[in-house]
Every structure is written in C-alpha cells, then in structure tokens.
C-alpha cells in the first residue's frame, strides 16, 4: 500500500514529463517534417527521466564537494565538461542570465 503511495507522485511527475517531451517532439517533427511514434516518445521520456536522475545525483555531489548545499550554475557547467559544444551553450545561457540580472539591478536604481 505504501509503495503505491510512494510511486504515485513519481508517476504523476513522469506523466507531466511525458507531456512536455511530447510537445518538444511534435515541434521538432514539424520542423524536420518527420513523425514519431508514441512508443518513441515514451522511450525518450524514460531516457530523459533516467538522465535527470543521473544529473541530479551528480549535481548534488558537485555542490557537496564544493562545501555547499545549494546547486549553482558552476555545478551545471561542470556537468557539461565532457562536451565542448554543450559547455559553450550552457555557458552562453549563464552569461546572459548574469547580464540580465545586472540590467535589472541597474533599472531598479
């Protein structure tokens, strides 16, 4: 009984993830003029779920290693260390976030 209760939030989270990924796949399908079976989306969702799990554990380890309890963008950048292109993309996002923050700080004054 308790197992079912524990699994419930996970199932709902997975379902929400399935929905989001389904949308992404539909968008990409439109752009590429291809189609994907529901099984494909389901399998992709499982893969993403597993990847998020790995990512979460890694991020937690990185931040703990740095003596923090909060995961920061530095931890995420460390995640992307293996792939230069990926690293560049995330660094680009982080830099833009920082620039936007600086802008906001200036506009407040």
């Amino acid at each position, binding site marked *: 009984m308790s197992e079912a209760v524990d699994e419930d939030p996970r199932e709902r989270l997975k379902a929400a993830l399935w929905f989001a990924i389904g949308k992404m796949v539909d968008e990409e*399908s439109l752009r590429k003029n291809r189609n994907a079976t529901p099984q494909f989306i389901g399998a992709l969702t499982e893969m993403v779920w597993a*990847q998020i799990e790995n990512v979460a554990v890694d991020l937690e380890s990185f931040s703990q290693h740095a003596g923090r309890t909060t995961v920061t963008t530095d931890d995420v950048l460390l995640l992307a260390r293996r792939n230069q292109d990926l690293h560049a993309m995330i660094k680009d996002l982080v830099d833009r976030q920082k620039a936007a923050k600086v802008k906001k700080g200036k506009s407040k004054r």
Partner: protein
Amino acid sequence: MPPRKQAASTSARPSGAAANKKPSAAATAGGAKRPRGRPSGGGGGGTSTSTSTSKRSRTKAASEPIEIDDDDDDDEEEEVDEDEKEESEQEEEDDEEDEGEDEEDQGASAIPPELLTRILHEFFTNEGTRISKDANDAVARYMDVFVKEAIARAAVERDSGFLEVEDLEKIAPQLLLDL
C-alpha cells in the same frame, strides 16, 4: 554535422529572445531568486506562482514592478500554497501551453522549470540540497539539448517515415556518452 547544426540552430534562437526571456524567466521564478527547497516548501511556492506567471508574463510593463517586490513576497508565497500544490499540478498542463507560447523564441516548450525542480528534488539524496534558479534554467537548457540531440540523431538513422524505438536504441549509448 547534424549535432553542430543543431547547436547552431538552438543557440541562434535564444539570442533573439533575450528580451522575451526577462519577464518569463523572472516571472516563472517569482519565488526563485532564493534557492528552491523541498517541494513542500519551495515547490509549493514555485508551482503556485506558475499559475499566476502565465498572466504576469503577458504584461511586460506589469511584470517589472512585480519583480522588485518578488523577493519580499517570497516568504509569504512559499508558506501559503502547500494545499494548492496538487491542484496547480493539474493546472500546470494548461499553464504549460500558455508559457510555451510566450517562450516560443526560446526554442519553446522546454521542460517547465517547476517540473524540473520537482523531479530534481525527487532524486536528491540530501534533504537540505537546494538549487538556484539560474542553475535550474541551466539544467533545463541541458535537457533541452539532450532531447533535441536525441531526436536529431534518431532522424539521421532513418531516412524517412516514423521515428521508432529502435532508432532511439541505436543512438542511446553514444548519446549518453557524449552528453
């Protein structure tokens, strides 16, 4: 080539939408200047703001004064909405579509930030672990790239027709090693 192309196309879009990102990014993370705590605390505030953010993100003018107050409102929002969390989860699906339209230039319909936070917290082994808003966005970007890369690689495997699970199986090992 496809992976490079993909990188170029996905990074090209966000650059045009830095302006759009501000209200939606700030709005979706109304409570998220502070690190997000466990779902019962931070997540409840996060998901509850998601229902109001879809309205906020429409009016850029209105969002700016709200942003300033956000930090002060954080405490109240996070405490109030534990009960609304379950209801807002169902509403999330409707709100996701609204947020998707606003974030279209961003290469839209990325995984919703609140959902990502919830899932991440599901897997954190330490109760006290939190994640900053920027880090959450960065992880969302990472997963975005992951999904798009998976689709692109699977599309390469099969010249035409439907993308099947087999294609995913073929590209999965290399994908996981690369990312």
